[in-house]
């Protein structure tokens, strides 16, 4: 039996095993195949925060849950680090029910590193159901939409919320998004209506959907998946989970591309036998 005939009969579990090894070995060995070089989209994300004057206020929307931690969490943490390093006040909201504990974790880590205090330098307003309706209502009044923070403290008693009424006082919208509701809805409901500058960090599977927003200038920067997160970590000079996973990512990609090529070559004799039909 020919090599290609054997390949066509290959048990797919060998491929799963190979992918598993290509992920585990680079993580354990900790070698670096190639340096992570930030692209223009990640630089746009980074520069949008760098341009903000210290003391300005941003809305940081953490619209994801544990299902996409591997992609969204590193970029969320890196964004919080850059914002805190620049002394920018953060108002965090989450439109995913599983999001608030992850945002708490991000602020606990970044807040301790930069000596920032909850409710003075940042606040987590928590989860609110209603998707686009919440975004739209925030345009009228953020304190009415979120009358209290995640712990139940009224926003009237939270220093970081002082003077904040709606998006008119928000210098930048940072969306860390896993899907719906997320970046697309923030663009539609907030950027278009209130003309707030916006940057986004999204899962890789949804990233192509947001390129038109980037091209049209509705987004200033875009981080796509773990690769985008790794590029951004390099820019904020705090390499973390995303950067650490990139070697495994690259090897797995090369292997999958190779298998696609091999699979098509293996299928060629069959197609020829059927007359190319």
């Amino acid at each position, binding site marked *: 039996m020919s090599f290609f005939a054997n390949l066509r009969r290959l048990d797919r579990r060998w491929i799963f095993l190979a992918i*598993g090894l290509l992920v*585990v070995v680079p993580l354990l060995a900790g070698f670096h195949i190639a340096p992570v070089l930030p692209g223009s989209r990640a630089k746009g994300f980074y520069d949008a925060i760098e341009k903000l004057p210290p003391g300005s206020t941003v809305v940081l929307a953490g619209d994801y849950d544990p299902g996409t931690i591997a*992609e969204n969490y590193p970029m969320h943490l890196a964004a919080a680090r850059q914002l805190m390093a620049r002394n920018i006040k953060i108002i965090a909201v989450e439109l995913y029910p599983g999001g608030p504990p992850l945002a708490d974790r991000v602020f606990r880590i970044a807040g301790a590193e930069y000596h920032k205090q909850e409710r003075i330098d940042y606040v987590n307003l928590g989860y609110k159901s209603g998707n686009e309706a919440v975004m739209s209502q925030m345009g009228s009044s953020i304190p009415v939409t979120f009358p209290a923070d995640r712990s139940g403290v009224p926003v009237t008693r939270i220093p970081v919320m002082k003077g904040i009424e709606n998006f008119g006082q928000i210098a930048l919208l940072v969306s860390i998004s896993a899907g719906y509701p997320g970046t*697309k809805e923030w663009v539609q409901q907030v950027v278009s209506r209130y003309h707030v500058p916006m940057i986004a960090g999204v899962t890789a599977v949804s990233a192509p959907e947001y390129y*038109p927003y980037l091209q049209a200038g509705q987004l200033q920067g875009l981080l796509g998946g773990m690769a985008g997160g790794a590029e951004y970590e390099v820019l904020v000079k705090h390499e973390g989970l995303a950067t650490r996973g990139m070697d*495994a990512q690259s090897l797995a990609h090369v292997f999958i591309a190779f298998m696609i090529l091999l699979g098509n070559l293996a299928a060629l004799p069959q197609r020829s036998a059927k007359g190319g039909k």
Partner: protein
Amino acid sequence: MHLSGDIGVWIAALLTLGIFSFLYKDNPAYKLCEHLFVGVSAGYYVVLNYFSVVRPNLLDPLFHGGAHTDFLLVIPLGLGVLLFSRFFPKGDWLSRWSIALILGVYPALRITGFGQGDFVEQIHGTMLPLWVPGHWGTTIGNWILIVGLLTTLIFFFFSKEHKGALGGTARVGVYFLMVSFGASYGYTVMARISLLIGRVMFLLHDWLGVLHL
């Protein structure tokens, strides 16, 4: 190696391995994990929605508001209760009032959002100069974008058979679509591998303690 002493980490690790076992073949361990996931997720979201939605937005301001009681909340409470009428065949029509409100508000929000955020802004985003002096890259990029846009739009024009010049243009549109599908597939592969890396990092770092981050 520094094994975790956290029972929560052990449960999560064993459930992860149970789900991964499906890659070998379907088995009782996978079935157990799958059923646990469905049951726990349903229960978790019911409790979460009660404490993060129903209680702070409706019950507390209505029944524990004291001097600031918002009596207008009786209206959404009534509309919410009407939704449960679907369980009773004789009165299920009552739920249509609530559904009508939902159907009225959401399409309006989404249509206006789409109109402003996608339709107008995206057309505006394609009004590009086809000659940018001194910037060959930008000029070529603008041409590719506009040709791709027009040919793809023509591919979706079904009022005339795709023959002759129309067919040729539509075929160019297909090539642009294929490139975009390829890019989407590449990103999907990256997303799935990222999720695997995340789980492997959890197993090696949080559970087994053999990976130092």
